[in-house]
């Protein structure tokens, strides 16, 4: 991301130089959050959640990507990614999900980034190197895979049915089953609506009803050393209902 233009530019996402070798938990998380920032911008662009004219092109992973130039959008994305950090440090995150809602509130699409196979490492060990070849010596490899992921996201997004007007979106986090919910003050995360909650249904039909969606579309499995990030897109039932109408 070139830093010349656009007053509120997100903190230059592609910063592989900061973590030349991916062999600590910290480096893993940095790479992931950078990637997510880019991915969210890309999704917003391809799904036309904001007018495409509000995006500028930038360079990430040696690929031209789109970045929204509205300061509030950028701030929102950055702050939500920042809010992700503590959760990552506690190893509680299973998936990061960008959910797109219809104006009426139904779940239309979900972009999932599954990191459940990241290594679980204590917070105070986050700078400790992984043993042997378990980290990734070759950052280029990861970056290339991430680039491919972005590319495929872009492609898949543009191939999907266009969304109706006035859709909204949010970033959600699915926690690991054993993790404690991030409740406390300040509370950046709020529980999602029942239909997207994981865990026991407790008999309620609503809980988890929108999970999985009707149709899913693989994006890419990034796999290099222990950096395993799976991403796919789910399309909810509401979307096809809309189409049917």
């Amino acid at each position, binding site marked *: 991301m070139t830093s010349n233009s656009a007053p509120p530019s997100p903190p230059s996402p592609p910063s592989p130089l900061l973590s030349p070798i991916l062999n600590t938990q910290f480096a893993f998380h940095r790479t992931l959050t950078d990637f997510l920032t880019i991915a969210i911008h890309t999704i917003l662009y391809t799904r036309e959640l904001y007018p495409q004219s509000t995006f500028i092109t930038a360079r990430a992973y040696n690929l031209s990507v789109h970045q929204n130039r509205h300061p509030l959008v950028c701030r929102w994305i950055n702050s939500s990614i920042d809010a992700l950090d503590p959760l990552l440090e506690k190893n509680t995150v299973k998936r990061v999900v960008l959910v797109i809602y219809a104006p009426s509130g139904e779940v239309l699409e979900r972009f999932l980034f599954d990191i459940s196979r990241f290594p679980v490492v204590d917070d105070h060990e986050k700078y*400790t*190197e992984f*043993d042997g070849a378990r980290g990734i010596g070759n950052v280029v490899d990861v970056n290339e895979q991430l680039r491919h992921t972005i590319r495929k996201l872009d492609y898949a997004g543009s191939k999907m049915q266009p969304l109706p007007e006035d859709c909204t979106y949010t970033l959600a986090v699915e926690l690991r089953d054993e993790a404690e919910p991030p409740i406390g003050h300040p509370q950046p995360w709020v529980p999602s609506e029942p239909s997207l909650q994981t865990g026991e249904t407790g008999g309620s039909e609503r809980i988890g009803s929108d999970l999985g969606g009707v*149709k*899913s579309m693989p994006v890419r499995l990034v796999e290099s050393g222990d950096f395993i990030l799976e991403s*796919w897109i789910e399309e909810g039932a509401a979307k096809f209902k809309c189409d049917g109408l």
Partner: protein
Amino acid sequence: MGSRLEKNSELVRKRFESHKFEDEEGDEYEGSKFGGFADYFRRKKIKLQNLDADIRSSTAGNAQIFKGVCCHVNGYTQPSLNDLHHMIVSYGGVFMQYLDGKTTVTHIIASNLTPKKAIEFRRYRIVKPAWVVDSITAGKLLPWNSYRVLDEGVGQRVLAFDEGKVVSQARTQSRTYREQTKTSWYTSQVKNMAENIDDEAGAQFPSSQAVVLNGTGMYTDSSGQQPSKSIVYIQPNKRAEVPSSSQSLDASSPLKDALANAATGIGSGGIERLESFLKTSHIVPEKNATVTNPLTTPTRTSKVVLRDEMLESPTPQKSPINTPQKLRYDLTNLESPTPSPPKRVKLLADLESPTPSPPRQAEILTAEEPVALPPTKAKVLTAEEHNAILLADPHIRKSSTANPDFLKQYYSESRLHHLSAWKAELKSRCQRMAAEKSASQKQSLKRKPGSRRYIIHVDFDSFFCAVSLKSTPEYVDKPAVVAHGAGTGSEIASCNYPARAFGVKNGMWMKQALKLCPNIKVLPYDFPAYEEASKGFYEAILDVGGIIQSVSVDEALVDVSTLCLPAEDTDGFSVREGSVWREQEKADRIAQGLRTRIKEKTGCAVSVGIGGNILLAKVALRKAKPAGQHQIKPEEVLNFIAELSVQDLPGVAYSIGGKLEEIGVKSVKDVRQMTQERLITLLGPKTGKKLWDYSRGIDKTEVGEQVVRKSVSAEVNWGIRFLSQPEAEEFVQNLCTELQRRLVNEQVRGRQLTVKIMRKSAEAPLDPPKHLGHGKCDTFNKSIVLGVATNSAGIIGREAISILRSYGFSPGELRGLGVQMTKLDPIKSFGDALPDGSQRRLNFGVSAPRLVKQITEDPIDDSITPKKAKSGQPSSGPSQSHLDPIDESPTSRKPKAISSQALRQDDPIFLSPQKPRETPVHPATAISRANASDYSARKYLNMTGTQFIMPSQIDPEVLAELPPDIRSKLVAQGRKETKPRSPSPKTQSPIPRAARETSNPPLPSQVDPEVFESLPAELQTEILASYSANQAIFQAQSLLPQSPRKLRTIQNLKKTTPTKKQGPLFRSRASKQDPYSTSTQSNFVADQKDDSDYNSDTLDESFLSALPPDMQEEIIQEHRRKWLAKKRGLMTSALKDCHRPPDQPPAIQRKIRLPLRDPKPTFTTRGLSTLPELRETLKEWFEEFREDGPIEDDVKAMERYLRRVVVEERDLGKVVGVVRWMQWLVDDADGATKTNGKGLEAWSLALEGVREQVQFAVHERGLGTLDL
């Protein structure tokens, strides 16, 4: 400095000097309140001033040298803080214990200052302690400038006054501790004392009891320069001239007061003062001839006391009525820390009596003769004095070290010595016999583990008792014991079974035995009869045959396996019908025969235990007793052992049993519940392992294993009562002579000498419970390495005596002395002519055990062992010194006869064996030292007596040409070489190692034989030596896994056959001839892999061998565990990428070791997982079966794989890719050929099925339908 210092210190000084101590009513003697530290400290200082005031008042007569001086002492000083304090205060100074501020004192006394303090105190008067001492000596205050601690720096010149002129001078004094210690006060004191001591013969050492170094009295210098220390009560200065007798009354009056004080028991402080007073006031009446004036002759206390001891020690038989000496005793008594007041009064009276006539004193003292001495009094005698009294009794004298023949007598009378000597002799005889007998069958001695064994353990029933009872058969059925007397103090050596019924045990005191069984019969020792019986016993055993190991005079272990096993089956492996039973029967028969024969020969019953190993035989014997036999059969071993209590196992008694009982283990059964690790942590690695084995009936010791003697010693700890140091030293010398005798007997020389000294514990009474025994003792051991193997009593004695001296024990307190030689080198029989010669050896370091061994085998080594000229001992052989250096020069070991010959002639340097340190370094020695670090320089040593090295590869033709005697030698050498290397069938090694070993003789495979031959002989030997060293290492490692369990590991390793590379998944087109054969496709089904295949992670041998042995073992274990786990199917996918065990992390940086990931699911036996690979495979597959459609099994396998990709690998993209590729293949074929619709239909169907399965799997994961 400056005015502030003056002002402040003046204030302090005034305050302190005006300080008066009235009584203990001041507020400083009140208790401190909680938290009132400041208050407490203030009071403490006041109290210290009280003390000073006290000193001041008591030494008012001293010159006020330090008037106006206010001192503080910093750090360690000589004399000590305490003394300085006292000196300063008593000579009018003021002393500050705590430095409130730098300006509060005028002078700070220090020997040295820390750099920080040196800066801090730079501007103050820092003086050396010598200033104080010298000032007192000089009687005036010396200028402090010449006693500066700090100066202005090295090069700084300072102004000084010299005879009225101002001069400028640079300071060049060095400030080190050495300066202080050399010129220090204490040193001079000690020097003086040492000189005094040296006047007399031998060294004297302070007793542990006498509080000689009490108070300041010790420092009183003979020169009289020192101030009097008896500051407390005696006003007249000690330096005063001998007063007249009239004055003496005055002088003694304060003494009377003091004694009165002490008698009334005012306080222990008073007594102490009295003590110091008595010391310092030099009351040594015996030096004074005039009885009328016993108290007034000032003499030099320390000196005189010591001299007195000297006087009396060499003449211990002084009559007990020795007045002066006794008087001294009384004085010493006075010093006793817990004196009883009445006695004091009596003594006081004694002292006060104006004419204490000798008879009167004698009378008093005889009443207090040693026998009647109450314990508190006895304590006060010095040990020597006590010994002197003790030895006055001629009977005791005879049986103690005072008797010149003591040692001889001791060894001739000591029962224990007799027994042990007897046993040792028997053992060596037995070994000789066994060696003679089994010389031929030595080969069969090495038995394969796991073969059936029959060990019998034969033991007399209460040997001594039974033999002794033969002469008195009437007591056979009555309780009888063997002991050296019927008195209560004698120890029971053996008791018969009726006596045991009463609870009498071996080793019990008679006293207790008589309590248990009052009418017990005590039999005397009858050593000739014992010997006779033992001889008969051993004859009978030797008749049996087998391998014999004598345990003791009355018990032996015999390995009769060879006799029991049938002739055709010497292995003890094969089991034919009834063969085991027959063998057991045979063993029983042998035992029975042995018993009857011994009974015939000796008339005593023996018991026999039979078992599969020594442990079982021993355990069985317990059951067999008395007069029976018992065999533990293999099937009952575990049950039998489980029932025993732990202490029933051999080698387990109170100590180990107690430890085990603490953790609730009583029976062997309980031991079995414990892990080996736990036992090892509890009992140590050896015992723990042994016990663990024992609890399972395992015992790996072999019968007849000859324990090499590791040490020879001579020790006496009974009857040691010395009166003087020379006496003790003479005894040590005698002991060393005895040791020499034993060393020569054992044909060994030792390189390390250990001296054991037992000294009476400080709190132990002078008379131990056992008559002339050692009682409670502190034991001191000290070893020195002699550097030269020796057995010369002279050398050993000298070293031993110097060790004894170095401890500086009072000779009277010695209770036991022992000398022991370890690190023994055998003297070869070849060198018998000079068995006690000592010769310097080359030190070959530890890294080459092989070489060391060869040295000891070198016959040249011991052949000539001349006495050195310097040794001061008569050379016991002709002077052959010109021949000796063969051992000393490393070059002589080179396989060059000429060079060594030359060296022999011109090497006249002899190394003195006695003063190794002073030995001039011979050039050869220097070379050898240099070479010691260089492995290549350590030549292959001559082993067979010829000067030439035989390359292990022998040309048969050359061999044939040689004369027969040389040939046999060479052949023998060759055999010797190859034997250990040839892999025995049992100790199989893994392939790489085996391969290395099979290539072993004659040359290492890396060496080209031709090149080797063309080399000069010297180089050849060097190469051989270096390779053989390598091989030695490998051998050592191949020998490592010796326990049967580890062996199995190795065997497993061996079994692994290199797996063939799996063929391609599908037959190539070449196999098209038979396209219908299903076998072409069965390949495709991912079948169960051969689980013995783990070639991929067989251990790397070279890596393994580079590790230390314990780590090797760990890795092998780990490896094996993994392999087993895999074999059992715990690791489900033994597929393409097998994870190596994670490497050890480098020690420095800690790294996170991530848990192992599940391996990726793979497709087909080729372990495919990437999309391009899959596509390729699919394409081949499709091409192959385009016409006929896919085989059902293959499709199923494909579905299974894709399902795993979805669920386990979670790579949806790949699945989609694969399915789409299939779709494309089908569509493509459809569009292109349109030939055989049938095959394509089948393919489409299969594709549908795959899609369905994939969707199913995706749904299972909770995702929506994939767009395929």
